[in-house]
């Protein structure tokens, strides 16, 4: 019967411990506690885009006509002032409407924004009668590509300037839409500004001026 010497016993113990250590490490490494973080993030954030409706390509708007209130104007391109407020046509050109060019053109998917004065120099402006519009009224926009688009009013809103609904006006939409903006409400003589804005929300109904 073989007998273990002291050295042999130590070897056996050392070998056993080594085997145990290696086996333990392998067993630990084979346990995957959580999936990789990249897998968790996959698929999130891609469903926030609104459903899109096919719109037209980009083409600068050239003219606006609102038969119901007898308003007709060419459209100038408007940007931002230094204080990041939206530009408006010069007050001396109160019958001139303008289009905000850092947004979609009318007919593209999104909110195209057209601005005009309610008055200027004590006389009525191009959008003096804008508040008279009602749902169903038509707005015609002629673009540089020769197309004339018909938008239909969905909603008329008068809102205090302090509560201007930036998200509603400038927020993404799933279809081609149009916003007409002018001033409204009472005039604050000390601030030399109207207290409200009148906003028309319209959607693209089709092509042609009918």
């Amino acid at each position: 019967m073989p007998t273990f010497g002291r050295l042999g016993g130590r070897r056996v113990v050392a070998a056993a411990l080594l085997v145990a250590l290696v086996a333990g490490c392998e067993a630990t490494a084979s346990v995957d506690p959580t999936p990789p973080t990249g897998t968790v993030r996959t698929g999130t954030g891609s469903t926030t885009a609104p459903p899109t409706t096919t719109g037209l390509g980009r083409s600068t708007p050239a003219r606006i006509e609102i038969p119901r209130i007898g308003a007709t104007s060419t459209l100038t391109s408007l940007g931002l002032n230094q204080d990041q407020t939206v530009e408006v046509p010069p007050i001396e050109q109160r019958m001139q409407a303008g289009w905000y060019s850092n947004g979609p053109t009318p007919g593209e998917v999104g909110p195209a924004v057209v601005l005009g004065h309610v008055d200027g120099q004590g006389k009525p402006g191009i959008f003096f009668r804008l508040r008279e519009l009602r749902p169903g009224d038509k707005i015609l926009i002629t673009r540089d590509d020769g197309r004339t688009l018909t938008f239909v009013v969905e909603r008329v809103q008068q809102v205090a300037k302090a509560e201007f609904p930036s998200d509603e006006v400038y927020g993404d939409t799933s279809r081609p839409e149009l916003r007409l903006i002018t001033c409204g409400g009472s005039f604050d003589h000390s601030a030399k500004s109207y207290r409200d804005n009148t906003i028309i929300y319209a959607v693209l109904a089709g092509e042609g001026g009918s």
Partner: protein
Amino acid sequence: MNLARTLGTGVALAAAALVIATPMASADSQPSSTVTVSPAPSTVTSKPAPTAPPKPQVVERPKGAPETGGGPAETSDLAVWVIGAAGAATVGAGGLLALRRRRVTN
């Protein structure tokens, strides 16, 4: 003596067996010690690039409300004074005329 060595070896082997068995037995329960194991470098590099937020339709959103009105026609203070003075003069003249007529008739 041999008995002691044999017992020592046996204890060592038993301990080794316990060490081996413990992680296997606890693999399903995901012991906390395994959480500290970092994922393999390959899984880190395979992370999908963060998706850029969709570009807004209005690229630069204006601040505040548009100032699209110059104000209604204003009557200046001078005009108010002129109109008021003219009115007062007319009333005064009318009153004087009435007084004269009354005196004449008397």
